[in-house]
């Protein structure tokens, strides 16, 4: 592993995707203000073109410019991350002068960056149509106002991306927390961005209050942890936990940090704000919350539970095993039962997101159940690899179909629909492409083969079952009792996904069976960028299901970078 200090040789190259985002931030501030202003050199008549201000040009005054620029920058960052990941990973650590590691660029962090940038690129493409940007000729107050604030929205999206990639790269708990907060604060504003809407403001408020309380609790845990070990470096913490992690102070700190991350992944009982936030935010933002933001939370959980408080630290299984197992069951069941009763599709997707958080927590629980005593380490590492791969795969394909579903809703929102299931009525007649896409997204969420949602669910189940059967010696004296109890998590998971079919299917029924609502008979707004984004989601949803091999290989490489470092 190469170690470099800030702004040494190779620093910019190693952090190229992040620098692209920073450049994007400045471009967004500058580009919409470029005009034909000139600057007169004092005491002369010579006017030098100055470009800031004046009468803006055709391009720079286009209200759609920030959205398109942001999409380009995220795509560029995505491309750079892909190139550095696929074309031979150059593992790098960014260290301080004192030698402590701050950021680490490896397969694991790159994979998560791909997830974040992919989701944000799609969301920003979709927002180009979704935010009420009107044409330049719109001189009404509302039109001017809407066109003015376009750029703010996209700047917030960029800072979200920046914060998330810091979370992915951080090797220091404090740095990780800063990234988390940067991303969180941006999303709080994004949720309530359209302040004219009552729901949006209320949702943002709720999300902010609950989120900041969770962050505060997490931060307190962090300070306790620092008090205990004197360092927040992952490497130091891991060693400290291995030595005496069973003391009360670190365990309390761990619990408090779990609250902070639990809110991010919308795990029960910290999930109450999620449905409100998703329902109040515009659909692309809700999509980001459900995919990228959730991936960030899972990333935090993985770092915290598997690196810092790694199961190796204790004998046998991890300390948090039973607690997390119970929470995962509560989360998935609660999410599914609540989704059954929601009539707002965005709330339904929010609760389904809670259920998915439950599945992922079940997978993390399974890792905790591994046996790390001498002689078991190789086997356990293998099994942990399967589980982490499954988790990363799940998060990656979630961007395809969950975000895709939100994007379909976002098109409905632009005609003031999307808040009731009935507004989806007759979508099959009005717009067959959207209906087919939505149906495929729903089937993928439910886990119907051959879509990617099925493969991800299968991988999670496989991971859990593998762990459950790890200590089992296969012979004819095997009994059912020999199997580890985490097997039942897999059982509950399949039962839950059977329940979930009901509400996913209901969306299909409404689209294909119900007549359009009154006033909604006509064609939907066109919106090329959002349709393109939906098409991308659709193709990847199918492709990663039928040809999952390559993505699994990438996720495996990413998981290897995390698990192999133990």
């Amino acid at each position, binding site marked *: 592993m190469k170690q470099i200090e800030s702004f040494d040789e190779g620093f910019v190259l190693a952090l190229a995707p992040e620098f692209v985002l920073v450049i994007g931030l400045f471009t967004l501030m500058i580009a919409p203000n470029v005009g034909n202003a000139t600057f007169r050199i004092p005491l002369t008549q010579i006017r030098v073109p100055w470009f800031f201000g004046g009468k803006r040009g055709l391009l720079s005054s286009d209200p759609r410019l920030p959205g398109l620029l942001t999409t380009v920058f995220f795509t560029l960052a995505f491309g750079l991350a892909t190139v550095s990941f696929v074309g031979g990973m150059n593992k790098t650590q960014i260290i301080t002068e004192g030698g402590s590691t701050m950021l680490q660029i490896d397969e694991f962090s790159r994979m998560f960056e791909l997830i974040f940038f992919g989701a944000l690129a799609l969301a920003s493409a979709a927002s180009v149509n979704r935010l009420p940007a009107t044409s330049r000729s719109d001189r009404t107050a509302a039109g001017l106002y809407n066109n003015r604030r376009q750029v703010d929205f996209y700047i917030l999206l960029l800072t979200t991306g920046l914060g998330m990639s810091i979370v992915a790269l951080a090797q220091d708990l404090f740095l990780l927390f800063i990234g988390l907060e940067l991303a969180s604060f941006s999303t709080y504003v994004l949720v309530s961005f359209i302040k004219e809407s009552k729901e949006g403001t209320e949702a943002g408020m709720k999300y902010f209050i609950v989120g900041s309380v969770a962050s505060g609790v997490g931060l307190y845990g962090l300070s306790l942890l620092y008090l205990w070990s004197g360092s927040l470096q992952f490497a130091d913490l891991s060693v400290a936990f291995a030595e005496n992690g069973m003391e009360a102070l670190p365990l309390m700190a761990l619990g408090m940090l779990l609250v902070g991350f639990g809110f991010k992944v919308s795990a029960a009982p910290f999930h109450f704000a999620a449905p409100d936030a998703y329902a109040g935010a515009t659909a692309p933002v809700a999509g980001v919350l459900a995919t990228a933001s959730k991936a960030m939370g899972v990333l935090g959980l993985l770092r915290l539970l598997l690196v810092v408080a790694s199961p190796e630290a204790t004998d046998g299984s991890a300390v948090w095993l039973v607690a997390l197992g119970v929470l995962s069951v509560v989360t998935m069941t609660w999410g599914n039962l609540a989704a059954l009763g929601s009539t707002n599709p965005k709330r339904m997707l929010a609760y389904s997101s809670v259920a998915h958080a439950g599945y992922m927590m079940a997978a993390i629980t399974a890792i905790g159940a591994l046996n790390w005593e001498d002689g078991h380490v190789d086997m356990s590492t293998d099994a942990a690899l399967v589980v982490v791969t499954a988790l990363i795969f799940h998060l990656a394909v979630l961007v395809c179909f969950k975000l895709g579903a939100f994007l379909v809703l976002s098109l409905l929102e632009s005609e003031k629909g999307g808040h009731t299931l009935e507004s989806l009525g007759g979508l099959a007649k009005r717009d067959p492409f959207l209906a087919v896409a939505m149906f495929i997204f729903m089937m993928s969420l439910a886990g119907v083969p051959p879509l990617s949602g099925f493969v991800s669910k299968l991988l999670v189940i496989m991971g859990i*079952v593998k762990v459950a059967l790890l200590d089992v010696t*296969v012979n004819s004296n*095997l009994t*059912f009792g020999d199997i580890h109890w985490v097997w039942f998590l897999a059982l509950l998971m399949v039962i839950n996904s059977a329940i979930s079919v009901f509400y996913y299917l209901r969306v*299909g029924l409404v689209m294909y069976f119900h007549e359009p609502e009154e006033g909604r008979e006509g064609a939907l707004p066109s919106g090329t960028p959002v349709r393109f984004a939906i098409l991308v989601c659709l193709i990847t949803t199918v492709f990663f299901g039928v040809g999952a091999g390559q993505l699994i*290989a990438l996720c495996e490489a990413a998981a290897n970078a995390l698990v192999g470092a133990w």
Partner: protein
Amino acid sequence: MTTDWISLPLVGLPLISSIVLLAFVAYSSPAARDRMGPSIRMASLVFSLIMLVLTTAMFFGSNYIEGTMDWATLSFGSFNYEFRYDWIESLGIHWTVGMDALSFPMVWLTTFLLPITIVATWHEKNAAVYFPLLLMMGGALIGVFVALDLFMFYVFWELTLIPMFFLILKWGGKDRKYASQKFFIYTFTASVIMLLGLVTVYFLQPENLSHAGAWTGRTFDIPTLTAHAQSANAGGAWFLGESLQKILFVMLMIGFLVKLPSVPFHTWLPDAHVQAPTGGSMLLAGVMLKMGAYGMFRLPLAFFPHAAQHFQFALLALGMISLVWGAVVCLGQTNLKKMVAYSSVSHMGVILIGIATMQPLGWAAALFMMFAHGIISPMLFAVCGAFKHHYHSMEIGAMRGMAKHSPWLATSMMFAWMASLGLPLLAGFVAELMMFLALWYFIAAEGWSVLWMVGPAFVLAITAAYYLWSMQRTIFEGGDDTQPPASLHGQPVPDITGAEKWAMVVMAAFTILFGVMPWIALDMMHGWTEAFFETLLIPILKGGA
């Protein structure tokens, strides 16, 4: 030149062509869609006929397709046209296809029914979408039967749900929304439980069997797993231990029993059938139900024979209850299609009893029942569909004196009803007779009282009763002075259309063919079941005694 790939077009042609057609249709205006209807219908018919020609050539085997082994002597565990292609290598998932005497009759049946269904429902509305969906259904069904990889099997198993869901939803009756949802949820719930069972089996195999994945070291390959289970079960040992084998057997069986369906999981079937359009019902009853029985033979019975023997009486009881319950409920039906649907439940009970006898004869009976019911029940539903189509009602007694008004429909109905109640010289009779013999042997071997035969025998009488009674009320009663049903609003009473006549005649001809010369299909089925018992079951089950 090797011809192993020959089974690929059977899956690929219908799936790809249907997706292309549907995508094409999705991007055309409603008016253009109506215009394209007839040509899409014709294209679907041509595709399905190509598949029928292909499978028929496969049946005649080596004369036409190089490398085909004789179906009847194909040794157990080997497959015709076996073809393996890496899919997700790291997990040991392959695209593996192949056919033996268990799957081939089902594949042939599917390709046989597809053109018949298309012809029988020639005038279905919204043709541009309907016929590609039928094709897709056919492709997915064939995929289930030719798959020799658990992952692939499960993918196609679930894929069949989607076209059927839309067929019921878009072309179904009044309560289609409820029925399609119920159908989907019932079968999906059962199959995810099955999936967990399959994954558990996957991780309980030793590492590095053949075709194992590079990463997990396990394989989804069905022949490999069967061979491994066979050796682990040998000599009376329980593969995976007693309690686990029983639990896994039950988990897999739940998936298949719901699909079959067996009482008490059968309630989705009458709803789905009554609401489904004729074409959907024909494929549902003809092939889709058989997926359940097929899966039982392919997986749990081959993997867990000890557990199968342990649960033998439970299976027998389920079969008996299905048989009797289905028949008794039929007596009370006033809806023609519902009656036929419950008779399907009853006939699936026969398959289950055949399996539960755990004898070659009983299993051959089950296999032949799968095949015979696959020809007869589509005819039943085609008759129901024609009845509904022409008289706008499904009620028994809505139309009387059909023999006078609609001689073609009356004749078809009579023929189909007779075939279903097991008239000698028709295909259904052979299967029922074999099942009774097998059950008789079984009862004699167990030393039970002959009274146990009363239940099934009684069912024959009930079956005759409900069929004859419904015939009497629709075909003959009334005579010359019957009034046409009120639902026709004074229109003249029509007979069935030419396309429907063709479909009926072909199905009837094949019912007679397999009734008079059952050995055409029975030879290979019998060979397969004998081989299954000789090479797999007997060494395992006798070993411990």
